């Protein structure tokens, strides 16, 4: 069978193999879990993670000092400095007054986890290594004391 070569020189299968190797290396870098390296221009930031509808008292098991990871990529995104709980609220119609109220749900809490980390802050983003933090961003986080899906509710540049 005649061998096909691009311009008589390059085997297209070789080109595909090189592209595949580049993609695998890139994916390995993207999904690796490097320890947090402090860049020269880094500054300390604090951000708060809100986990909704946790059982009341859930925050009591979260100890300060625990390392927090992004559950999707395994990135180290800081350590816990505080954890607290507030009543979990849901929207509920108040037909008598034509108002949609925020009503507390007994037995459930919003768990708030305050995390501190080193980050590079630009006009565009606050980056903790490869992880970008912004208020209202969904986050899947875990430590040895918790795991959950929630939102970032505050970002403070210190």
């Amino acid at each position, binding site marked *: 069978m005649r061998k096909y070569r691009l311009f008589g020189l390059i085997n297209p299968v070789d080109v595909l193999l090189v592209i595949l190797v580049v993609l695998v290396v890139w994916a390995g870098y993207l999904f690796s879990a490097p320890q947090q390296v402090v860049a020269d221009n880094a500054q300390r930031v604090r951000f708060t993670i809100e986990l909704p509808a946790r059982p009341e008292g859930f925050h009591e098991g979260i100890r300060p000092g625990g390392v927090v990871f992004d559950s999707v990529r395994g990135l180290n995104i800081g350590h816990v400095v505080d954890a607290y709980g507030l009543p979990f609220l849901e929207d509920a119609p108040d037909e008598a007054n034509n108002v949609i109220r925020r009503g507390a749900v007994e037995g459930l809490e919003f768990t708030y986890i305050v995390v501190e980390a080193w980050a590079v802050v630009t006009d*565009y983003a606050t980056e903790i290594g490869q992880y970008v933090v912004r208020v209202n961003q969904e986050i899947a986080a875990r430590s040895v004391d918790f795991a959950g899906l929630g939102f970032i509710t505050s970002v403070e540049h210190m």
Partner: protein
Amino acid sequence: MIDEKGRLFKRVSVVDLLIVLAFVAVLAGFVYRQMAPSIGVIIRADERFYVTVQGAGIRHFIVDAVEVGDVMYRRHSRQPIGRVVDIRVETAYDVMLRTDGTAVLAPMEGRYDIFITMESAGSIRDERFLVGGNDHIARGSEIELVSNRVFLPTGEVYFVGERP
């Protein structure tokens, strides 16, 4: 012109040439999309105008994260839209279905509509307001905004014009 072996002028394989042309066409299309101005007459460039984006039904912590002076970007293109010059916050409303089968527009406790006005720099072509060369900002369009502290995924352009 094409010999029995499929070579143009007995030198270049037609198949090889087609592959290269296809690659060049894709590359040219990408470059054009990124850099070339759209068809139209440039009336003014580097003009200042104002864009107001509305975020509806948001919670207080998002309102608190937006400040005058923040630079807001369009999330998917990383194009700066402008610097925040004014913030207005109002009570959010939503449709409330009642058990008697009626529906009313009811205020939402703990939720807000935010109106973020930004001063933008761009160009005005054929009455279209453009930022970053080709990014057309039109009233009513959906827009995802980010700054270095906040993400507003469900913004809608409420106003765009030469005066706020």
